[in-house]
């Protein structure tokens, strides 16, 4: 029961993130998603071995809910990026697109189940839509920091899918995902602040010199 409600809540956060127009909102959403994933992994606790659950809890609670959002918050303040996200298309339209994405992923997962693949429809569709919405956020936003956050939403989607699909995936892959998130954010953070020193602003419009 908790399992389904956590997933639904995660879906709601996805919808909300595609409509907020303030960076602070993005950071708060990310930490909420971290917490939801923590609850989600707890609900999977009984099927996993002890060691695995230990890493999972550490991973979701500490990294996704606390460390990463704080780090991003710190970067936003240090680079005093303007607090508002400048998306290419207005919020209302992106909300519609987000709902379309979620509905399509539901259709997809129902089709999968009908074709005989025993898959948990709700979790799979929400995780697929998280991935696609992550990409959508990256596509429709100018600022680099929003790209990083889009990428993190994508990571959360992948993490949820890995839990729901392949519960007995060996530990090293889990560690790999964690490593990916951590290193990605870390490196992007470094480049963002070095970019601040070389470029005047950190929105993506500066980054179009390399063309043909």
């Amino acid at each position, binding site marked *: 029961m908790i399992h389904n409600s956590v997933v639904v809540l995660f879906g709601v956060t996805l919808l909300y993130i595609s409509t907020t127009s303030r960076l602070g909102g993005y950071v708060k959403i990310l930490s909420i998603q971290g917490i939801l994933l923590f609850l989600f992994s707890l609900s999977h606790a009984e099927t996993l071995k002890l060691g695995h659950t230990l890493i999972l809890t550490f991973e979701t609670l500490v990294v996704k809910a606390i460390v990463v959002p704080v780090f991003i918050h710190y970067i936003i303040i240090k680079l005093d990026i303007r607090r508002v996200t400048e998306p*290419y298309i207005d919020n209302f339209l992106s909300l519609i697109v987000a709902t379309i994405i979620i509905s399509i992923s539901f259709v*997809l997962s129902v*089709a*999968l189940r*009908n*074709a005989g693949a025993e898959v948990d429809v709700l979790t799979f569709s929400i995780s697929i839509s998280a991935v*696609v919405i992550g*990409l*959508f956020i*990256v*596509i*429709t*936003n*100018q600022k680099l920091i929003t*790209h990083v956050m889009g990428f993190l939403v994508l990571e959360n989607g992948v993490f949820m899918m890995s839990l729901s699909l392949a519960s007995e995936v060996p530990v090293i892959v889990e560690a790999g995902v964690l490593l990916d998130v951590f290193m990605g954010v870390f490196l992007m953070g470094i480049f963002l602040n070095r970019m601040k020193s070389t470029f005047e602003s950190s929105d*993506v419009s500066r*980054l*179009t*010199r*390399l*063309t*043909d």
Partner: protein
Amino acid sequence: MHVYFITVAVAVTGGLLAAIFSGKADENRLAAGISVLAVAVAAAGVLQQCVGVLFGGDAISATVDLGPPLGRLRCELDALSAIFAALTSITALVSIIYITAYISGMPKTSLTMPAGKHYMFFNFTVASMLLVLVLRNALAFLVVWEIMALCIFFLIPFERGKLRPMSGAVNFLVTMHVGAVILAVAFVLAAPPGADMDFSEFSAALSSETTSGTILFLLFFIGFAFKAGLMPFHSWAVRAETEAPRGVSGLLSGAAVNMGIYGILRTVALTGTAAPFSGYAVLCISMICAVFGILYALLQNDMRRILAYSTIENAGIIGIGIGVGMLGRSYGLPLMEVLGLAGALFHAINHSLFKGVLFYAAGAVYLSTGTSNINRLGGLIKTMPITAGTFLAASAAACALPPFNGFISEFLIYSGLLKALTPASGIIITVGVIAVAVVALNGAITVAVFVKTFGIAFLGVPRSNLAGVEPSPAMALPLIILSVLCLIAGLWPEAVMQLIRAPLLCLGVTQTGLIEESITITGKVSRGALLLLAVTAAVFLVRTLLVRTQASAPTWGCGYDSVTSRMQYTGSSLSSPFVKLAAPLFRRVEKRLIPRSADVPGCEPFPTRRIKHASYSFDFIEALVIDKALVVIKSIFERFSWIQSGHTGHYVLYILAALAVFLFAAVWRGTT
């Protein structure tokens, strides 16, 4: 066969040694000497082998196993390859002697690459040409075929700082690559699956009378037509031969075009009796090529461009000969087949001879006067008698005038056409007569072209202060040898026909009696030519006896005494009536350049301004096939320049789009 391989190896090592010695200071003579020696030895070896094969000896063959990628290579020097090998080696030898003399006259700094490397690529080209003639394995043939194109590609950009040869070379390489791709497709289609793609296996697929057999033949024909410089694919020949250095142009028009001809003849040999349609196709393409080639030659005023277009015209004539031969074979007219194919082979030999002389003479003119634009030359015969004499002989041969060899080969093609009388179908007769008319028109325009070239450049009064100087004996020697060969082949064609006898058998001609008959035909005609020479000599003798006192006076100017050299007819004015007549065939651009500068000083009272008028025409087929295609491709691709836009967001969008499409396809395929 091993001697043949040794000669090819000698040419290659000669090239390498020349390149190695190219670094030193006075390296021109050393490198030149080595490469000339190498080509001479190679030529001697090849000629010895070819003579053995051509006169009675049967084909020498050998198989070499090179392991994985190329597999078993069957090499065979049969009569058809032998005659072309002989031709290539002679042309190569004469060209290398010519190039070395040509380069020694040029300052070292004006070469794009050191002379030694130029010789290296020349030797590699010759070696690859000789190798291509003997290879019978399709993959190895293609490999050496493209290596030959590559080596010529390096020969073309020769003079430093000039950009046009560079683009000419690139045009050449790309055209050859397209030709090679077509050939590759043809080879794969013809080879039965799994076999190691030997030429002998192609004859089954080629000679089937069905449409697939015809389409396959046409693919082979088009693939080789690229190299032969036939009309739609001729732009490389014109560009390369005008921009390459002189010796190389001689090699290009002589040996390179022969490779294309050899390829077409090899296909004919493999095909046996093809459907009439392929014969008609070959004949029609060659007719168009011949007429358009010579018409464009009439427009040009640069000696080398004229000769380049005349090469295309001669390739057309040879194509007509092949077409006649094929039609004869498919309609069951053996004499027409023999005459057509013999005419084609004979003309290939003639073309290599007289075209060589023409290019080397044009080179000698360029070297001594610095330009090959005939409108700025004139009266060169007085200062360059040997070059003028050989140029006259070669142009008479090119116009197929009786005492020279060109007449014999066109005569063979004519009589082949006239033998097209068969009650079977009316089409072949009409095509035959139209072809006769086309070749006649072609001959007449060739006379106009070479009258214009020789007349304007060598005769009359020098139009500018460019006085020519006789080339060094090393350059004059090739000219004399080749023009004398032209005359001998014209007056005693039986010797050349003996050469052609074995290749004809190779081409699948069965009745040897008919070959004898064609030889007697040429014999009789050459007796007539001899008569012409004798009568003219007799009349000239009478004239010298009769003419007693020869007073000299200025040319009769119809009463106007201050005749200047500028009042002479120039090349463009000489051909203007014809050009106006055939105007719709080429786009002429008349430009009247009126500079903004003020009045002309010195004639103040009259308000005149210096007006410069320039008119030039360009080859609209080349413009259509090459330039237009390039423009269209570039404009289409220009529209796709948004892909690399620089925005990270766009890039992720591409990934998402690809993912969505493929995912949808996977699910759609999975569920249905």
